[in-house]
């Protein structure tokens, strides 16, 4: 299918807007995960603004596609998208990580409209998602379950438990992105705990695997549309991304995993995100 350039252009502008809101949110809270959120912005944008069927004013709409942020620390990108879509007022973003807010540091499903699963300890999101995808299969429902895992996250054994389970029950309604930025809290993933060769790992677990540029919106959309056509197997999209994407001094820097920017860095980041690097 031809993907129109105007659509890609619109999504790119939307992603840039989300990135500014991510930096704003983490700066204001003086706490939160900015690097991974920026890197996942293009994937989240493609999902919420094009790929997913959802109704922000009816978050419990049964036929909606579900998004599960398994790398739960990247709430800034999720909350920015949810607020912009209209799940809750944009002003709420100002309360991120503050006492009394429904916007917890990690997603909490009972409190936040649009949050599907409470995540935070790694591996729980994808593992809960396979249970949800099984539920849809049992009822012959047609919605899709989109999961976003961090690459560091998939060092968790539970991820591979879920991978086996999804294969057993042929959960082809499950599309998982692995945000492959090669960085985790303590540094370069291949130093901390090597994941490569990653593609054959997923293939061996019975999943369809596609490797893409996780910032190429056309590729993100095209790959998801292709995955939907392949039945009988769960799908993983290994999305090569740049942690901190869009802010020059944050790109590919593990130090920006969980540290908020100070005022100078914040102003510089906002400048770059408004006018481009």
């Amino acid at each position, binding site marked *: 299918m031809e993907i129109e350039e105007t659509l890609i252009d619109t999504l790119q502008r939307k992603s840039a807007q989300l990135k500014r809101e991510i930096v704003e949110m983490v700066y204001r809270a003086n706490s939160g995960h900015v690097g991974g959120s920026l890197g996942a912005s293009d994937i989240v944008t493609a999902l919420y603004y094009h790929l997913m069927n959802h109704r922000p004013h009816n978050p419990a709409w049964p036929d909606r596609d579900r998004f599960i942020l398994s790398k739960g620390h990247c709430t800034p990108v999720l909350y920015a998208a949810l607020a912009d879509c209209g799940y809750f007022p944009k002003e709420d973003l100002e309360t991120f990580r503050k006492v009394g807010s429904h916007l917890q540091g990690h997603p909490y499903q*009972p409190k936040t409209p649009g949050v599907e*699963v409470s995540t935070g300890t790694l591996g*729980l999101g994808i*593992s809960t998602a396979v249970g*949800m995808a*099984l539920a849809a299969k049992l009822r012959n429902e047609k919605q899709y379950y989109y999961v976003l895992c961090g690459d560091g996250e998939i060092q968790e054994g*539970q991820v591979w438990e879920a991978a*086996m389970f999804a294969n057993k029950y042929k959960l082809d309604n499950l599309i998982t992105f692995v945000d492959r930025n090669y960085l985790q809290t303590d540094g370069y993933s291949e130093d901390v705990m090597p994941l490569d060769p990653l593609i054959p790992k997923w293939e061996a677990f019975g999943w369809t695997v596609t490797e893409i540029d996780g910032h190429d919106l056309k590729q993100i959309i095209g790959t998801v549309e292709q995955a939907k056509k392949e039945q009988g197997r769960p799908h993983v999209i290994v999305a090569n991304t740049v942690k901190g994407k869009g802010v020059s001094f944050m790109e590919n820097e593990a130090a920006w995993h969980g540290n908020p920017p100070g005022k100078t860095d914040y102003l510089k980041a906002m400048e770059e995100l408004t006018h481009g690097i």
Partner: protein
Amino acid sequence: MEFKQTRQGYVDGLLSLAADFPELVVLDADVAKATKTADFQKHHPDRFFNCGVQEQNLLCVAAGLALEGFLPFASTFGVFATCRAGDQLRNAIAYPKLNVKIGATHCGITTGGDGASHQCNEDIAITRSFPNMTILVPGDYEEAKQATIAAANYTGPVYLRFGRDAYPVVPEIHGRFEIGRAKQLRSGGDVTIITTGILVSEGLEAARLLKAEGISAGVLHLPTVKPLDEQAIATAASATGGIVTVEEHSVIGGLGEAVAGVVAARCPCPVYRVGVQDVFGESGTASELLDKYGLRASDIIQAVYRVCALKQKD
């Protein structure tokens, strides 16, 4: 005396619920023959899901099914449900207060021959400390069945604790089962024996033997450890001025400490805790282990003597 397994009560409860709860599904982690959920699988193969040896995934799959409106009963051994998958139980189930039921079998020292690795004497302590959890610890087969049915009729996470062995059937506890409600089995003036789980039979036996010695012991049975029937405990403490708690669980973090907390706050009096002391178990028959680890009527009687002696000091 008749002996029956509480885990059989669990699956018989599930089977009795199947028709009325079409959304009820049962999950296991490669111990379906041991947990007895294989009986459910036989009758409802399309409502049974085996996760293999994946206890962490088991609990999260159950959470996912609950989020989509199913009523999952996730079954495995207690030590795996609470220790192996403690994070999943806390973060994926208790924290978002999902409608997941944990059917935990092989709890307590009577798990027997498998030894300390499988004898979970810590599960009540762990689950009690998680907000939102309801903890049911039935005393025999019939009460296990009742507890399972009550769990299905309650919305929210429930930890159901069952054993491996065949345990005495105790007709005294077969009245109406209500979550959070204690059962007064016997009244007494000198001391109250407060039981949970399968040691209720030892508690009743101790009270009978004490009567012959002229000591009047009441027996209060708590098949719900959380939420605790605080009023029943306070009433017992004020009526007898001395409490002995009895549980097939560590004395750390279990029924005994829960009761002691209520007594200390509402009606201070001596409390002595019968349970597994701060030790790991070992292999042996259930009967041998109950003897060796001090969980018999004779041990309860010794505890009653201590409480009575403390009372006289006042």
